[in-house]
């Protein structure tokens, strides 16, 4: 893996067939809201064909991405909002996160090394371990970030680009 882990084959070449929107969730970027969305993520993953363990892992990855927006993106700003979109593809689940926080440089998101036994950098590590891709880019209108994540049904492991 070469520094950033942001650009993946997924967004360059969508091959998974049509994207079916399942549910959009919109909530204030606050830690106490995350418990409200976990059940939806889990049920959406089940609906996309994942078993319950896989679905719980997907919940963790999406939750971690939301936490990063709350903690690092908005840095505790009270009026921040997160939009979470869940969509089904024939070959997996697609999860999008939209924020209005300052633009993120994906190169700064460096997951911990496997041998690291320190408290930090676990969130991005979980996202990378669990999802097949996570693609950070600016929103088209430039007013924030768009994080597009995908998890394949067959469980093909993470492919660095």
């Amino acid at each position: 893996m070469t520094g950033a882990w942001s650009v993946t084959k997924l967004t360059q070449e969508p091959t998974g067939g049509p994207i079916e929107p399942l549910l959009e969730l919109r909530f204030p970027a606050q830690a106490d809201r995350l418990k409200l969305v976990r059940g939806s993520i889990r049920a959406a993953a089940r609906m996309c064909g994942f078993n319950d363990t896989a679905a719980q892992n997907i919940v963790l990855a999406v939750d971690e991405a939301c936490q990063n927006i709350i903690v690092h993106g908005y840095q505790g700003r009270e009026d921040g909002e997160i939009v979470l979109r869940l969509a089904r593809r024939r070959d997996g689940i697609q999860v999008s996160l939209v924020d209005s926080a300052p633009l993120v440089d994906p190169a700064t998101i460096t997951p911990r090394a496997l041998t690291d036994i320190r408290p930090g950098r676990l969130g991005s590590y979980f996202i990378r371990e669990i999802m097949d891709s996570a693609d950070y880019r600016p929103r088209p209108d430039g007013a924030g970030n768009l994080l597009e994540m995908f998890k394949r049904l067959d469980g093909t492991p993470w492919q660095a680009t």
Partner: protein
Amino acid sequence: MASNLSEARNQDVVRLAGSVDLEHSPDIRRTLLDAVAERVDIFVDLSEVTYIDSSGIACLVEALQIARNHGANLGLFAVSRQAMRVLELARLDMVFSIHDDLASALQAKP
């Protein structure tokens, strides 16, 4: 989904329950750091943990490091399936000493 979290300190045992997540980890961190400050071995009961995230894992890792710096240990016992899945994902299941129950944890004390 429930986020009820209870921590009960009883000698060298700390019990975590419910969601050990970003909402509750500041309190949990305080409890764990207070416990390891006493420089004795600490055992953490994770049987009732229904959800744990990176912030919860980070609390455990930080407390483990402080315990080790004191020449003490921090062990986990009765780890719920949910918590074990996340510890394994983090590859920390080999870093913590993990016991089936408190009796075996105490037995394993050096």
